[in-house]
């Protein structure tokens, strides 16, 4: 079965071709079924390969399956090949599983949309590229998948392209991604130049010979991390993610919560061999992760659009994952990636369900007291919210707690402090959202209130599946109970600590104490939200007026977009304009027109030779004779 690992991306590719080429002519249900079934097949194949893999003896793993050689030129060889190892298996499972659920949900959510076949074609294409990305065994193939998901992200964000804001958001996502991709590409070039190979295992084996803190490895990892910041929306390249909410909600769930944005984390974890050789890069990763976590959390506090809240939450949670990788707890980062995929996708799909019930409303100020009207959505949303806040025993508790723990013991007190503060704010804004939507007085508009209804089963069943994942998904990583740390052990072969790693053992009381502390912080956040949005609903307004300056700053997202516009976008536009009018028009066109002008000027003067007088022509002939004879005679 493992030899058929290449089929995993091919199934959604087939779905893309069918839906893309013939989707308009097929009935809607067939289109939806094909799209979902293909991803379902991928998931089934992934699971069976997974089961087969764990039965393999230790020395047979990991497995590399080469499909064909793409480029063989000189010393450079690029193959299409798949690497089957714990990390890629986990990622493949998460991607295909969550994608399948979201496809099924989309059949219901996008049912009225005229672009239904196009949507499924793009979604399948995205899954194809994402599976290529996580299944690749070399940097170039990963980069192909990387670029491909960027493309699909652009296509899907700008899905309703007639809307100006949607197409703008799509462009913004692509361009900002591209900046990151440039860094990634430089990293790959540097890797090939240094190691003369782009195959993961070869590079990591060769890298072990380099000293810790080696300059070239630091450079490589920093470039790679630039790519990660672009794709995974960290500081400074995060501005595209909130705007990306212009796309359909399932797209936000799939791409901007569960899969594409996690590609950066996956990449850092995959290159753990390189990162652990460069302490400076690790520090950069951790600092940016922590900074992003709290920075985005503060912005999520103030938003009124429910999808924006979730978007900033995603940025913040990705910051957690990078923080984990930055302090060396790569397994904790991947663990959080997995649980986050479940509960964040669930949160987005839940938001989609809410807006579906409210005929497209997304502003939380126009919601309220919904819990009786849409019970299933309410319950699943609640589960996801508890998970993200890190409440025992839901999935997020274990993964977040791991990260907080390691940020303290493997990192620095400052990391822990920032991360804990961000956890407090996360709990606060998530429950703020819950209270504003499901509790309190109903602020729903009149006409909308009449049509409030629960979503159809095709939408609620995926919600329930993801709720199960959010609830119990963390149990694979339980640290303390006997036989625990199973996730960590499974993943260990994929994570390479080039600089040596202390598997320190900590007192159980210390670990339990830390767990309780993080729960307390979360509960404190929930309580504050409760006070502000249930007990005293006018308190937020009062506080906003009292701290006007801070409120404005945060509400306007620290004016980062405006700063970027001023500092980067406008100068580029100006210089492009200059290159257009100054260089292209004047220099290039000038040269072309100028040469024509020179010819015209020359001919205007030379044509005066045609005087029309016979004897002038005779004179020219005699001149020629004199010259030729003179030359031939040798004078």
């Amino acid at each position, binding site marked *: 079965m493992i030899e058929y690992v290449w089929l995993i991306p091919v199934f959604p590719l087939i779905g893309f071709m069918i839906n893309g080429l013939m989707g308009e002519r097929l009935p809607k249900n067939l289109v939806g079924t094909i799209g979902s079934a293909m991803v379902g097949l991928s998931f089934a194949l992934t699971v069976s390969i997974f089961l087969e893999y764990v039965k393999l003896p230790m020395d047979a793993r990991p497995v590399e399956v080469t499909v064909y050689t793409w480029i063989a030129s000189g010393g450079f060889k690029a193959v299409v090949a798949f690497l089957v190892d714990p990390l890629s298996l986990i990622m493949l499972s998460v991607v295909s599983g969550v994608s399948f659920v979201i496809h099924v949900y989309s059949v219901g959510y996008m049912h009225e949309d005229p672009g239904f076949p196009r949507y499924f074609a793009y979604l399948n294409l995205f899954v194809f590229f994402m599976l290529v990305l996580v299944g690749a065994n070399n940097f170039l193939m990963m980069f192909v998948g990387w670029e491909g998901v960027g493309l699909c992200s652009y296509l899907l964000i700008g899905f309703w392209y007639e809307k100006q804001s949607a197409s703008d958001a799509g462009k913004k996502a692509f361009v900002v991604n591209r900046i990151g991709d440039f860094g990634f590409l430089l990293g790959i070039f540097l890797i090939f130049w240094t190691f003369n190979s782009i195959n993961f295992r070869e590079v990591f084996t060769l890298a072990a010979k380099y000293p810790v803190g080696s300059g070239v490895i630091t450079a490589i990892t920093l470039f790679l991390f630039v790519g990660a910041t672009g794709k995974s929306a960290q500081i400074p390249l995060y501005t595209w993610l909130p705007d990306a909410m212009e796309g359909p909600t399932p797209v936000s769930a799939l791409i901007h919560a569960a899969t594409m944005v996690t590609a950066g984390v996956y990449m850092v974890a995959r290159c753990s061999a390189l990162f652990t050789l460069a302490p400076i890069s690790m520090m950069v990763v951790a600092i940016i992760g922590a900074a992003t976590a709290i920075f985005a959390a503060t912005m999520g506090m103030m938003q009124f659009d429910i999808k924006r809240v979730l978007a900033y939450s995603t940025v913040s949670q990705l910051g957690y994952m990078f923080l984990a990788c930055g302090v060396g707890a790569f397994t904790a980062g991947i663990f959080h990636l997995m649980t986050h995929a479940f509960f964040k996708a669930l949160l987005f799909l839940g938001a989609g369900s809410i807006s579906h019930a409210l005929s497209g409303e997304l502003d939380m100020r126009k919601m309220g007291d919904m819990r009786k009207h849409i019970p299933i959505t309410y319950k699943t949303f609640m589960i996801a919210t508890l998970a993200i806040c890190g409440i025992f025993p839901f999935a997020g508790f274990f993964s977040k707690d791991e990260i907080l723990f390691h940020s303290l013991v493997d990192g620095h007190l400052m990391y822990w402090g920032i991360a804990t503060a961000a956890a407090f704010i996360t709990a606060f804004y998530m429950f703020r959202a819950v209270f504003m939507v499901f509790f309190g007085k109903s602020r729903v508009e009149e006409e909308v209130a009449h049509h409030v209804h629960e979503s159809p089963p095709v939408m609620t069943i995926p919600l329930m599946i993801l709720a199960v994942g959010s609830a119990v998904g963390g149990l694979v990583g339980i640290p303390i109970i006997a036989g625990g740390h199973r996730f960590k052990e499974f993943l260990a072969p994929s994570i390479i600590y080039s600089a040596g790693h202390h598997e320190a053992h900590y007192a159980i009381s210390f670990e339990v104490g830390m767990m309780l502390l993080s729960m307390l912080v979360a509960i404190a956040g929930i309580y504050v939200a409760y006070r502000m949005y249930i007990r005293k609903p006018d308190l937020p307004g009062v506080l906003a007026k009292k701290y006007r300056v801070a409120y404005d700053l945060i509400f306007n997202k620290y004016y980062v977009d405006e700063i970027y516009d001023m500092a980067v976008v406008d100068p580029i536009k100006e210089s492009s304009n200059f290159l257009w009018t100054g260089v292209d028009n004047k220099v290039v066109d000038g040269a072309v027109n100028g040469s024509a002008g020179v010819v015209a000027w020359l001919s205007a003067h030379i044509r005066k030779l045609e005087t029309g*007088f*016979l004897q002038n022509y005779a004179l020219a002939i005699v001149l020629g004779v004199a010259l030729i004879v003179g030359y031939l005679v040798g004078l």
Partner: protein
Amino acid sequence: MVVPLPYILGLSVALFALGAIGVLIRRNILIILMCLEMMLNAVNLAFIGFADYFKAVDGQMFVFFVMTVAAAEVAVGLALVVAIFRQRATVNVDDLNILKW
């Protein structure tokens, strides 16, 4: 009796140069045509001189053909002059200048 070749050739060159000067200086088309004939004549002289020097009759063959062509050319040229004179009532070559830029 043998005429030395250099004298023949010198005479030929002189006549040719005279004809060329005539073509370039005179304004009357008829005189220009006449000087042209003189140039052809000079060339004929050179051919005959070489034919005599190398004792080969081929030079004289060439003169034969040159003469024929000159006759044809004069016929057509003078017909043209007559036609032009009918149009413009002039044989001054300076007045025939409309084929200019």
